[in-house]
């Protein structure tokens, strides 16, 4: 397994946001993470990427125990992520945003790689614009490009199509497919079921902090626990 998270638990005061959650991601696969609001999906991403430390449980990434490591160390091991609301350097230009994660690398190679991703995502014409002038969809794409700058093996994408115009969603999906062909694995949190169905081999449904079902879309939507999580008691 590329990622193997086991028994992750995290509480905030009296609220248990993630409760004994397991998540395994094989190399080069796309796992879809769905579930009602407040089910713990983003908190799980924060635990895996090191933004939060779990109260219990272990995160194995490429067979190394990365539990409780700081986010930049986990990122350098090859785990990239994006946020529900893009966390860009708003006043910096598009290409400067790409340079930031690789600023410690040889200058020429780093710039060349940034240019490749700008081409890949068709952001080249915007490279000297401040990030804040981009549309919502372009900002999401730029954040994904930035996450790719350290050549990660696994990307955690938090609602990367939310608020993105339909035509751009199609482009984003195509980009994710091409990245998978290059061997990259993804976990995507997504409310758009068309996206889930088009991309994912496996779907994990979270509710109240843990997985209540795993499988393909047809199977999980017939699962009694999933029906109850979505429709209420």
């Amino acid at each position, binding site marked *: 397994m590329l990622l193997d998270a086991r028994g992750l638990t995290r509480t905030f005061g009296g609220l248990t946001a993630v409760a004994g959650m397991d998540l395994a991601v094989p190399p080069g696969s796309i796992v879809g993470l769905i579930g009602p609001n407040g089910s713990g999906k983003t908190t799980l991403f924060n635990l895996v990427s090191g933004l939060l430390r779990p109260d219990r449980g272990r995160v194995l990434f490429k067979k190394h125990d990365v539990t409780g490591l700081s986010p930049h160390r986990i990122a350098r091991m090859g785990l990239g992520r994006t946020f529900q609301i893009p966390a860009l350097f708003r006043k910096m230009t598009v290409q400067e945003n790409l340079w930031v994660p690789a600023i410690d690398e040889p200058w020429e190679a780093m710039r060349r790689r940034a240019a490749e991703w700008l081409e890949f995502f068709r952001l080249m014409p915007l490279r000297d614009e401040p990030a804040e002038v981009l549309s*919502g969809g372009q900002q999401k794409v730029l954040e994904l490009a930035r996450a790719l700058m350290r050549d990660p093996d696994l990307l955690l994408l938090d609602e990367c199509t939310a608020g*993105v115009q339909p035509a751009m969603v199609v482009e984003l999906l195509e980009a994710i497919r091409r990245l998978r062909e290059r061997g990259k694995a993804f976990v995507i949190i997504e*409310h758009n*079921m068309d996206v889930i169905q088009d991309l994912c081999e496996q779907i994990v449904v979270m509710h109240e902090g843990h997985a209540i079902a795993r499988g393909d*879309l047809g199977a999980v*939507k017939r699962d009694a626990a999933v*029906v109850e999580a*979505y429709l*209420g008691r």
Partner: protein
Amino acid sequence: MRARLLVEGLRAGYGAVEVLHGVSLDTAGEAVTVVLGPNGSGKSTLLKAVVGVLPPWAGSVRLDGTDLTGLPPHRIVRQGVTTLPQGGGIFPRLTVEENLLMGAYLLEDGEEVRTRLQEVFARFPILEERRPQAAGALSGGQQMLLAVGRALMTRPRVMVLDEPSAGLAPRLVGEVFDLIRRLAEEEGMTFLLVEQSVRQALRVADRCAVLVQGEVRFAGSPSALSGEGRLMDLYFGRRPPGDPDVRESAS
């Protein structure tokens, strides 16, 4: 006659992002219409556009013959459409009575305000008992009654509710829906509500609409949903081109 809310081709969103892609909805003279749908499908946005908090980009909202499209919220309230935001939106530091009086801020006739206050107390005696207490000191269920009571001060013809059951103890969820049904029948009011407690909401609904990704994918009688498998298909399914249910909602 029961007020009829008719929404046609509504488009709305935030910034450059369109959330509602031409939504049509008709309460059709029925008492309780429920809008269902998964997270992020645009349910709250739809309610905000109906009550004027979020100006629609296109389409129309009509109450019987009156065009409400683009009116500011207070003018929509004057037309008889009152809304209850998620969580009720009571003022926790004001007393129960003061909260109720806030609901009558559009009324200038003091005698009329007192009459309506008595009506609300008659319907919810617990509020009269708690009259001088800070609203924040009430239990969750009492706060919900207060929020409904405050809305009743405007004597609305239509009540628009955003997840009335959210945050309530499970025992109270059923009571809220019973109250909605009772108000709809006794006061002749029209209810438009958004809910995540699907089973409870469908129990009291006369009509329902399923909103997915900013589009209505089903509109009609709850019985036509024929079981929960159908509903999960709508929640999890892609949009079938020429789906008969979508056509029905557009007609």
